[in-house]
């Protein structure tokens, strides 16, 4: 395929599938306060200028190591946090500055599944009430029996018995609790679900059950996922498009095949090579990165990855690379390309 026809194909695809979420230059900073008057002395640059788009019905995987800002990105899109800069377009509507009622309306369409199935469910509430809560929130006049049938429906959809309604969260295993969390996120029939490490607290056998469930639900309800995880093989299994984050920046965006077969950014290459593969006969060449991720309060100048990069050049220390398309559907922020 020539480059031109690939671009044309992409344009065609753009028309076929509308973009549901568009994030432009998003920054999320946290102030560091010091002194008697609590003066802001610095900022933790948790997310430092991130741009990407998700198409309807697709899964966008966001990967990176702890502290790279992937969860903060998800939370900022949900508007749990106020963006410092940049804008968020959801369904062609700018939701960056929304407040009060109009923000509540958007939250109906964007729901979240949390990492820790032990901490994200209220231990004092019956499972039925946990799932019914979003329904009650957005429809005060709903009849109790109506709510009940709706919740029972949701329980069946996520593969739980209907008698789970009258039980409490502690009576369930981790995987079942995650199903409850998913049922709650589904209750308002959202368009976009942000899943923040939904399976990282689960054992492999249960992890695969939950991943399968998410895929089935996506097909059934034409859901769009922003799937945040640190496990690259899980992200590969789930995603259509993948973005790799490092120190608050998106360093590479590509579709699944491009990302895993021909990663371009040196960080992505190291990350993929670091995964221990469940095959004792495969001895792969591993790129071992030196040192730790630097602090996001005082990120390195130029490319944030240059102190650990085996290919760093002089310009990497000075000029911050921008994310640019170097191959069809494959963007990378690196001076090597």
């Amino acid at each position, binding site marked *: 395929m020539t480059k031109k026809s690939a671009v044309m194909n992409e344009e065609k695809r753009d028309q076929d599938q509308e973009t549901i979420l568009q994030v432009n230059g998003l920054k999320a900073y946290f102030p560091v306060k010091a002194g008697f008057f609590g003066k802001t002395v610095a900022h933790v640059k948790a997310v430092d200028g991130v741009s990407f788009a998700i198409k309807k019905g697709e899964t966008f995987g966001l990967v990176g*190591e*702890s502290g790279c800002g992937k969860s903060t990105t998800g939370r900022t899109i949900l508007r749990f946090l106020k963006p410092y800069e940049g804008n968020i377009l959801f369904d062609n509507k700018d939701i960056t500055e929304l407040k009060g009622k109009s923000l509540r309306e958007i939250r109906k369409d964007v729901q979240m599944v949390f990492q820790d199935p032990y901490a994200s469910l209220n231990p004092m509430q019956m499972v039925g009430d946990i799932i019914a809560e979003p329904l009650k929130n957005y429809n005060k006049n709903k009849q109790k029996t109506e709510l009940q049938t709706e919740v029972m429906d949701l329980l069946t959809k996520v593969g739980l018995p209907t008698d789970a309604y009258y039980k409490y969260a502690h009576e369930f*295993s981790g*995987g079942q609790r995650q199903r409850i969390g998913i049922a709650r996120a589904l209750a308002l029939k959202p368009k976009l679900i942000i899943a923040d490490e939904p399976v990282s607290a689960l*054992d*492999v*056998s*249960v*992890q*695969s*059950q939950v*991943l*399968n469930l998410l*895929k*089935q639900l996506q097909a059934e309800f034409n859901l769009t996922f922003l799937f945040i995880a*640190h496990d*690259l*093989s*899980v992200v*590969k*299994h789930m995603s259509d498009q993948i973005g790799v984050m490092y120190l608050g920046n998106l360093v590479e965006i590509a579709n699944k095949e491009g990302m*895993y077969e021909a990663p371009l950014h040196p960080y992505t290459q*190291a*990350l*993929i*090579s*670091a*995964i*221990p*593969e*469940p*095959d*004792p*006969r*495969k001895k792969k060449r*591993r790129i*071992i*990165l030196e*040192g*730790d991720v630097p602090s996001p309060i005082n990120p390195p100048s130029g490319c944030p990855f240059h102190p650990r990069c085996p290919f760093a050049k002089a310009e990497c220390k000075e000029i911050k690379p921008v994310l640019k398309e170097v191959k069809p559907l494959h963007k990378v922020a690196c001076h090597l390309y």
Partner: protein
Amino acid sequence: MNSNTSAESNNNLLEVKNLETSFSIDGKLYNAVDNVSFQVKPRQIIGIVGESGCGKSVLSLSIMKLLPKGAGKIRSGEIIFDGVHLETMEDKEINNIRGKEISMIFQEPMTSLNPVFTIGFQLMEVLLNHHNITKKQARQKSVELLKSVGISRPEKLVDEYPHQLSGGMRQRVMIAIAIACQPRLLIADEPTTALDVTVQAQILELMKEIQEENGMSVILITHDLGVVAEMCDEVIVMYAGKIVEKTDVDTLFYEPKHPYTKLLMEAIPKMDEEVELLSSISGIVPSLKNMPEAGCRFADRCPKAMPECKYITPVLASLEDGHEVSCLLYDQSKPKEGVNV
């Protein structure tokens, strides 16, 4: 310790025989580790895999005799380290072995270092306990140890506190403490689970280097089959407190026998394979209180379960070349057709 005795026991550094460790719940005893036997040879890295709640950590704590007082107890069985029985040993005696001959790395580098003491103090503590050296010498040795685990500014780090370090650095410090006295056996309980992949790669590399240099044996407890494939010579698969399969690493990945092992392998998403849905194991590991009295403990979740699996308890039996499986499908007493899985 006497080297003659170790030669007598078939060159095994550690031998665990029919170990049963039980916990008391509501006045009744339940076995978290049930009739477990295995051997560790010198210089061997042996992996123990299984899901949470399968007894792998309890097993390691039993060997170290670090079970929570009053709750867990070694009910029966033998733990023989270099010809010496650990299970009957008094606390005082075992203190001479713990930290010196056998040491342990825990999962949580955040919580297993003492936050109120400096890194140097915690390293020197081990050295001063087991060696007859001065404080100054111990400090010198601590700096050397930190250097050997790849810490770049060890002279400064000895005076710092754990909270000043990142997770990967803390785990390096934990390893430095564990290898301070050049132990002959290192028990690593999920040493890289709390770490990021790139840091995990660093730590695994480091552990391998040290193992090759010191020639120690390692028991590596993990739930990550990738880590097992990378590190181990032999693997033990545990389910619900019992060993279900035991073999060398190549056979385990290429010819797994037990249905549980097979399902576990299939449930992980692979990097070089594309599937729409992953295979999964229905249900969950039974809790200690709900453990079936008789029969195979995996029977309820096993797609290959036969009626007799519910009441005949399988035993760990050798197939060929030391490949041991505990499953009625492979029971030698049965006709060969049954082996068709």
